[in-house]
């Protein structure tokens, strides 16, 4: 009898040990992880004299750090966007390149990239609200309306994870929730939509992705515009200058770059410390635009990031340093 008991006890100890390990040794990784980007401090690790940005808590920041409080005379720029602004690596993405260019011109500046893949207007706002605590001198807001369904999907997942309905009880364990999450993202969401549709519950991804191209897509587009304006209000209230960078992409079967009409729309809201910049306008000065994009015609190659940084440089200088000393 004891022989059998040992195995069960060992299994229980193993499970509890794993859970304990996750909660104690990997707490940073798990805090906010199941808020799916809606946790205010996920990825921000505050130390005594500095803040570390980490790929943690379900928020994949590039590893960076900045001093707290901000050294006197230093300008601090935060770029908040999605996978386009995030780039292939920290050093290849335009926020870093822009910082280097500004330093080369003699400015005491640090440019931090807080872009996360799949982030739409709602989750960018959550990041921004946290950023306001770290004395920003300029925010570059990389705009794109194509992530709203992911924002909604992750919002629903976060609500589900918070639920205390009995079918969620086991998911209160970090280990179980993480396994479920990995299986959903790496295996389930790769299945064709028709297969996923045969599962009656919890396929927010399929449901929302399908809705994106219908009426819901228009609703989200409008939502994106109004929420962006609210974000600008918030930044104005904190008197923080902002560069609105509208995204550009190449439509299927075309050579020219598109901005979805957002360039014009946001130029109408330039007052009160808001500057605008356009990927389309910056890239149109180049001879071979498609060469600047990846195969998906949306994400930008490292060469494109260099051009974007160069194009942004005068805008940022004008917006940030107008009337200020180097």
């Amino acid at each position, binding site marked *: *009898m004891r*022989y*059998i*008991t*040992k*195995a*069960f*006890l*060992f*299994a229980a*100890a*193993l*499970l509890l040990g794993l859970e304990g390990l996750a909660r104690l040794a990997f707490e940073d990784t798990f805090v906010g992880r199941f808020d799916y980007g809606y946790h205010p401090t996920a990825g921000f690790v505050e130390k005594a004299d500095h803040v570390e940005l980490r790929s943690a808590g379900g928020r994949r920041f590039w590893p960076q750090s900045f001093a707290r409080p901000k050294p006197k005379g230093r300008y601090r720029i935060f770029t908040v966007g999605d996978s386009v602004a995030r780039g292939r690596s920290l050093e290849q993405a335009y926020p870093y390149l822009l910082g280097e260019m500004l330093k080369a011109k003699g400015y005491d500046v640090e440019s931090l990239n807080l872009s996360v893949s799949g982030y739409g207007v709602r989750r960018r706002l959550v990041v921004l609200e946290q950023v306001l605590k770290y004395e920003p001198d300029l925010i570059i807001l990389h705009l794109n309306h194509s992530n709203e369904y992911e924002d909604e999907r992750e919002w629903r997942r976060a609500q589900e994870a918070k639920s205390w309905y*009995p*079918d969620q*009880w*086991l998911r209160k*364990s970090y*280990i*179980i929730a993480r*396994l*479920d999450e990995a*299986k959903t993202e790496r*295996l*389930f969401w*790769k*299945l*064709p939509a*028709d*297969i*996923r549709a*045969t*599962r009656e*519950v*919890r396929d927010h991804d399929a449901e929302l992705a399908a809705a994106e191209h219908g009426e819901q897509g228009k609703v989200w587009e409008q939502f994106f515009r109004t929420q962006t304006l609210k974000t600008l209000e918030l930044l104005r209230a904190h008197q923080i200058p902002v560069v609105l960078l509208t995204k550009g992409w190449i439509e299927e079967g075309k050579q020219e770059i598109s901005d979805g009409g957002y360039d014009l729309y946001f130029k109408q809201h330039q007052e009160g410390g808001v500057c605008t910049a356009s990927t389309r306008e910056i890239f149109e000065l180049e001879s071979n635009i498609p060469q600047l994009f990846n195969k998906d015609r949306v994400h930008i190659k490292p060469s494109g990031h260099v051009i974007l940084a160069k194009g942004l440089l005068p805008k940022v200088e004008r917006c940030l340093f107008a009337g200020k000393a180097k």
Partner: protein
Amino acid sequence: MSFTAWYYPFFLFGVAALYWGLGHRARTWLLLAASYVFYGAWDWRFLSLIAASTLVDYFCTNAMDGRLLRRLSALAGSLAPAVWLGGLSAFDLARFDPLILQAAGISGLVFFFLYEALWHLEEGRRRKAFLLLSIVTNLVTLGFFKYFGFFVDSAQDLLVLAGLGGDSLVVEILLPVGISFYTFQSISFAVDVYYKRIHACGDLPTFAAFIAFFPQLVAGPIERGRQLLTQLEQHHVFDMANVHAGLRLILVGYFKKVFVANNCALIANYVFSSPGSMDIYWMTLGVLAFAFQIYGDFSGYTDIARGSALLFGVRLERNFAFPYLARSPSDFWARWHITLSTWIRDYLYIPLGGNRHGTLMTVRNLYIAMLLAGLWHGATWMFVLWGFYHATLLALYRVVPFLHHMEHAHGHRVWMSRVLMFLFTLGGWLIFRSPDWSHFLETLQAFTVWPSEFSRDVGHALGWLAFHVLPLLVLQYVTRKAQDESSLDHRMWALRGLDYAVMFLLVASSAVIDVEFIYFQF
């Protein structure tokens, strides 16, 4: 109530905790009450059906053993199902046609007068008459609820074929969950009492608990009286080893059902929902997925049932023994749904003569047994065809020398024989999974469609299937030498603990997909 409902563990452990705190008599009542609550949670009305089946067999088997019940008890028992339905109706707890209430009352009275009349026959004829009454009542109930619509539809189709078709009559009768299982259990008990293999049970609550024992009520295993009833009659002493074995079986059962079957169901349901738009890659994936879905689903159910019963100190029969390692059709049926196979063998195939009267009669008996086994699964011609297919396989393995040798192969040919039988089994599942003939033809046609390239979608589906089937194959490999395919007792305790932890994590991270057990519909 389903084993996969979130509240089932609370129900099970709550009842088990109460059970061990009570005396023998109170335990019997507790098991009976728990079983009726378990079944009633699905539909309270059909408790009257189980009660009727129980009372008929109780009266008939006791009469066979020469025990006459008092007239008032017999009358009360005969009318109990109607009283139950009347109570539900009076308190507005369930809705049904008043005709049903009248039918239940009249059936009860007819049974009572028949019971009274048959008792006065001389002993030999009385025993036979009560056996017939028990069997006929059970088969009529089963036939009405499960096959009435099927036979009406088939008769109408025949009339249409003969040019005599008129207005079609639509018959929709709700199928009571598990009816095939508990009626077969009742019939076998009556037959065993008739042949004096076992005595009738004089204690109604114990007998009622035997018919309705909740762990095996809705999907088996189909128990015999001498196996289950004798255990329910005994006073059990709490044994921690049973609790451990029970928990292990429950864990393995959930692993098979929740992790393997429910996830394989995604691919199988997709492929079989529109076979006309599939190609050979998708169909192959679909039939493999269904093979593991149905195995995980049903053997998982059995494991949970056996584990749940062990928490009360009751041992249920094994129902599966590595069926996909079978080397021949007869080997397959000795490993798949064992309690149904042995039921068919003992109560149908052997009484028909079995294999004692030459090849031709053996083949005839095989076809009768397998056609009825097929029909037992459901009231469609596809299940009959599935029975026919397996009967043909059984016959072919008897008469074709190559196949006969495969059954008794040695060395590396053992694996050849297993692969061949597995392919035959997959062929059977194609029939089983098809709701009708045209759907089946579409699935066959899909095997002739060769796409120009292997799509990424197929690759992703294959990955999903592999992720959910490989752990099951590992479990089968680990337990291959054990008598019981869920037994891990031969492994070192630390490895066993690791097995339990891994299985628990796999189950817990899959628990959100809730798919009903396939065998509930049978």
